[in-house]
Each structure stands twice: as C-alpha cells, then as structure tokens.
C-alpha cells in the first residue's frame, strides 16, 4: 500500500471537521508547494543535477532551511540511486514520503501535558509580536470549553497595553486574570497567580510573559527567574513551557528554539499565523534539527482557531492535491 493511501485511511478515522480546517488553513501552503513540485516534475523529465537544484529552491522558498534541505536532497539522491529512479514522475512520491518522514516522529506526544485534579501551569514564552497573548486567549477558550477551570497571569508587564489585552481576552472567554500594574516584577505577578490559582481550585493556569529577543541576556535571565518561582511553589511545574513561533519567521526561529530551550526547557511549540503564509517550512527544520514537538497551531483569527498539531493532518493538508491525483490514477 502506498504511503499516501495509508495516510488517507488514517485520516478517515479521525474527525473530518478538524482535518478540513487544516486543509483550508493550509490552502496557500499546499497549492504553492505541490503545484510547484508538479510543474517541476513536468518540466524536467529526467532526474539530474538541475532538477535537484530547482527542488532545493522550492524547499528553501518554503523556509525549510538550508541545512535541512541539503540533508533532504542528499537522501533523495541516494534513494534515486538505490531504487534506480530515472524519471522525475517516479521520484515525486518519494519526495512527499521523505518530507512526511521528517515531520513524523513515532512515539511523540503532541498532547498538552495536564494534571488530573491538580493545578497545571503552562508558561508561554517567545520573541516580540509572535502572538503569545492571543494564543493564550485561544487556549483558555479551548480549555474552558473542555470544562476546565482556567486562570490567566498577566506576566507581560513591559509592553504598553499588554495587560489590557490579556484582560480583554479574560472577559471574552470568561476567566479570571491576575495582574499587577505595568512595569512591576513579572515573577511577582506569576507568584501571586500561582497562589491565587491554588486557593481557588483552578485546573490550568496560563502565564503570559513579555516578548523578548533571545539574545538579550538580562531578559532571558528574567524568564529563568519566572520559571524558578513557579517550580518553587509547585514541584514539577511548569508542566508545559510553550514557545510561540510566528510561521512567517525564517531561519531565526531555529535560534529562538535553541536559546529559549536552554533557558526554560521548552516542551512544545505553538506555531501561529500559519493560515496566511505560503510556508510553514520552518516546522520541518525545527523537527529535523531540534527535538521539540509542535503542539498547537494557529490557523485563523477567530477564538476557536487554535488546533492541536497533528503531524498526519499537517502532511495530509500539505499533500492533499497529490493524494487526490494519485487516487485518480
């Protein structure tokens, strides 16, 4: 059975609506990616250096990143040699297969790690303007609709209007927000939030932090302190440290993932704004080079547009056209 058929079968057992949402959200990504591969295949009949070079460009254009692309191309070249593939048409499914392999790590848990009947703390970190506060708002909505009691901590005490922004989300979703005034110590806010969450019997506490560029040592130290405060109050917490990454980001996302992991042991990635860009290739690079799973993706502006990341769904969304084409053959 072909790789795509297996994937298709797996998909039909899952809820259709979410898969559809992935397909819709990834429309731009998919059409640009698979149509480009298709044109490439029809232009080059024979598998040769030039073919690989152009394939390399398509992948690079998708922000997959030079290192990952080089590895991928090398693997493809080997594969072509081993299987003795001469026609580009025959290589097409190998390309998709390789990409899917990259995204797909077995025994990986992309679920948000939450404690039963106990307070779980999730810390959100990331550079400026990636959508931390918005993601928190969306996740709060999601958790609340699953019946959890949620609380938000306004840990971004630096950016003008950040506390107000989180409060608006709190009202919208209907959850409590713990805040101090602008310019106060974020660790103190988080400390109060943990205390308050414990006494009020909250299930999940979502902690916002100010956006910071990963090369600012002092700000990264501040983040470390916030995390330390949480761990001191609740052993084993924070249960998740989610790095929020903008899908339009280029190779710097890799630096972000590396540096934030060093400071705060990032346990997962939230990939935002994936609906608008033609790319998202950085997902491949992050999974290829670092061992951090993508846990959530933002696929739209509405409050419910935050989804659990499912590699299978992502691949299916990416290759939906190709899968259909293969079926028709």
């Amino acid at each position: 059975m072909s790789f795509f058929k297996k994937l298709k079968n797996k998909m039909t057992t899952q809820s259709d609506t979410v898969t559809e949402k992935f397909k819709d959200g990834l429309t731009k990504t998919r059409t640009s990616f698979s149509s480009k591969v298709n044109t490439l295949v029809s232009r080059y009949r024979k598998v040769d250096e030039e073919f690989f070079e152009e394939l390399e460009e398509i992948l690079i254009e998708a922000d997959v990143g030079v290192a990952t692309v080089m590895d991928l191309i090398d693997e493809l070249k080997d594969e072509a040699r081993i299987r003795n593939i001469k026609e580009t048409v025959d290589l097409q499914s190998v390309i998709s297969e390789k990409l899917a392999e990259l995204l797909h790590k077995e025994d990986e848990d992309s679920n948000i790690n939450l404690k039963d009947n106990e307070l779980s703390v999730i810390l959100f970190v990331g550079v400026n303007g990636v959508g931390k506060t918005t993601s928190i708002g969306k996740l709060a909505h999601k958790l609340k609709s699953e019946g959890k009691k949620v609380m938000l901590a306004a840990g971004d005490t630096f950016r003008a209007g950040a506390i107000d922004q989180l409060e608006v989300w709190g009202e919208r979703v209907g959850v409590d927000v713990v805040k101090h005034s602008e310019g106060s110590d974020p660790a103190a806010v988080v400390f109060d939030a943990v205390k308050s969450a414990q006494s009020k019997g909250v299930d999940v506490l979502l902690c916002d932090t100010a956006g910071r560029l990963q090369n600012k040592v002092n700000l990264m130290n501040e983040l470390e302190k916030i995390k330390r405060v949480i761990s001191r109050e609740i052993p084993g917490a924070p249960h998740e440290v989610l790095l929020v990454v903008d899908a339009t980001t280029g190779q710097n996302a890799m630096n972000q993932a590396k540096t934030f992991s060093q400071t705060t042991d990032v346990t997962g990635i939230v990939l935002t704004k994936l609906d608008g860009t033609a790319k998202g290739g950085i997902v491949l690079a992050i999974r290829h080079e670092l061992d951090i799973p993508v846990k959530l993706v933002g696929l739209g502006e509405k409050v419910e547009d935050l989804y659990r990341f499912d590699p299978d769904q992502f691949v299916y969304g990416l290759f939906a056209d190709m899968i259909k084409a293969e079926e028709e053959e």
Partner: protein
Amino acid sequence: MAFEGLADRLQQTLQKVRGKGKVTEADVKEMMREVRLALLEADVNFKVVKQFVAKVKERAIGQEVIESLTPGQQVVKVVNEELTALMGGQQSKLAVANRPPTVIMMVGLQGAGKTTTTGKLANFLRKKHNRTPLLVAADIYRPAAINQLQTLGKQLGMSVFEMGTDTSPVEIAKKGIEKAKEEHHDYVIVDTAGRLHVDEGLMDELSNIKEAVNPDEILIVVDAMTGQDAVNVAQSFHDQLGLTGVVLTKLDGDTRGGAALSIKSVTDTPIKFVGMGEKLDALEPFHPERMSSRILGMGDVLSLIEKAQTNVDEKKAKELEQKMRTMSFTFDDFLEQLTQVRSMGPLDELLGMLPGSGQMKQLKNVKVDEKQLNYVEAIIQSMTKKEKIEPDIINASRKRRIAKGSGRSIQEVNRLLKQFEDMKKMMKQMTNMSKGKKKGGMKLPFM
C-alpha cells in the same frame, strides 16, 4: 548584533580569497557557492540571491581590475558594492507634505511592531525635527491596541486621537486628519491594524483609508526575522497601496535579517528606518552603505561616530582631552566619561559597531554586564572628593569605608583602583604617541 551571522560567513569565504594573489575561476565558483548558501541561510529571498550571485560572478570574472587592489580585494569590493546597491544605494528620508500636516500611514502583518514603531517614529520626529505629531489609533480589531497607543502617547506626552472600537478605521483616520489640521500638528501618524496580506477584506479597508487621508508616506513595518515570505508580503502590500518605504523592526535580535536585502530589490521600496531595541528612542535611519560594510565585517564606524556626536558633549570631550594630556585625570572625570559612553546605548551594541569586532574572538560574544558598570559607579560615588582627585591616599581603612559605602567587596574596590592606574598609564603612552606624531586631538578618548 544584527547581520553578524552573514558577516561572519562572508568573512570566512572571502578570507580564502583575500590571501591569494590571483583568483581562478574555480575560486570564484567556490566562493559564489558559499555566498549563495550564506545569503540563503540569512533568509534572503532565493530569487534575489540568484540575481545577486550571477551579477557578482560576472563582475568578478570580468575585468574591471583596479591596480591598487589584489584580485581578492576586488571580489570583496564587488560583493560590497552589489550588496549596497541591493539594499537601496543611498539613504532615503521621510517625505514632507507641501501643506501640513504630513500624513504617515503605518501598515503591516500582525505582530510586526506597527504600534511600537508609531511611538518611536513620533519620538524621532520630535527629537530630530522638533515636531509634535498627532497619533491616530485606527486599530479597532486587536484587543487593547488603542490602549497601547494611548500608553505610548502618555509616555511621550503626545496626543492620541481615538474613537473607540465601534467606528470604522476609515472614519477614524479622516477625523484624525481634521483634528490635526485644527490643532496645527505638522505630522499625523495613522496606526492601522495588523492584517494578513491575503485577507482581501482588510486589504481593501487599507485602500479606503488611503483614499480618505491621501498619505504622504505609507510605511510597511516588517519583522527583520521574517523568512522567504517577506517578499510576498511586501509585494502584496505594495501592489495594493503603493508603499513609499519600509521600517525593519527587531533588528537588535540575532537574526541575519536577509529579508531586508530582498524587500528593496523586489518591491523597489527603500528601507527608511530600523528598530534597534525596545525603548522608544531605539529607531534609527537605515544606512544601506553602512549596513553592507557591516555585513562584510568592515564595521560601522560611521554609525558609531554619529551616535557619539549626538550624545557626547563636545565641550566636555575637549576638556577631558586637555586633562588627559596634562595627566590630571581624576575619578570624577572617569565617572563623567562612563556616563557619557553609557548614554550612547548598551555597550555591547557599541562594541559590535567597531570595525573588526566581528572577527575578534574576545569580542564575539561579549555581553557587557551593565550591572558591573553600576557597581563601578557606586564605588566611585562612595569616595570622598579628595580621594577622587588623589586616589593615592586611599589606604586600607579608606578602602574598607568605600567598600561598605558602595555595598561592594574590598577586592572590587582594589580592582577598580588598579584598573584606574593602568588606564592612566595607558593614557600617558597614548598622549605621548599623539604628541610625537603631531596628530590632531583624540576625538573619542574612551575608545
């Protein structure tokens, strides 16, 4: 430091060529491959990279040999020139309306930093041009966006025009301009909501705002970390609105910022400003020619000098120079100097601008701990007037008192005294040197 990665990479590549007397075609090919990879890794759009590499290759293999340069230097020169050309040649300034107010419209994706940049730009206009702009809050979508602009307005002491979130942005912008005319503001900056370039509804709204207020500048705010898609984003906004400039934000991060290189070449829109930090004064005009030498590791001496000029009081510098010559340099002078240098910005940023700092291993990841400088200040401030002038009189008991007063250890006090002595010695050597060579005054003695 921004662009450092790219600088390093090209530096390494060019180093190989630099040492040689002659560049073979194989060398050029090898080098171009490296340049290509470096640029791609730096997120420069692959189409731009292709053109760039082809151009450089052609010129590098072709003649154009200047006698004073080795062929290796020649290639460096070509890469530098092409890079500068790619980034926009000359520095480009803000347009000014014939009849005030000059209307500036800020557009861009979500999270690029439009609102922050609006605040920074307002601050820039006041500091450099002595103008007080009116800020118009036309982002009615993102929660608390209006609050954010109002807070910035409060910090700057500037008025912000808003009509809540129930009025259409077009209407808000229109009324904002009217208000600015009434109150005789020279500039109006309209902050619009972030939107995806594929969102037709919201893109049309921007066109409507444009029609309503007829802006003199439409600036797109782009995150310097943006990947290959930066070009598509800029292109879409450009097609829809006819952009007049780009503001590149978050360039103080460690991104290689290749997006900057692509945008101009694809949209033919100049980069007018760069955001270099979180504070409101961290907006600088973009200097394409300087930036490209920075990429090549030649340092950004010009930027540094300009920075120093606006911040260091020239008269004080002269006095200081005099003092150094006569060796009457005291701890008071030292403290003053320290304050002046610090007023130029974070020290690690300054160091990154020095030529060759990209190459020097010691300076590579230098993070100047600003706290240490605070300690130094505290120690000096704990000295008596007499001690500051004559540090020689500081004995063990005085040291103990100083340490106690500043809350630092005696070892730290000792270290500072030692450093101060060394510095004086060094200065003596330096002044002797410049006397001997009859060179003009030293402009920046602290470097």
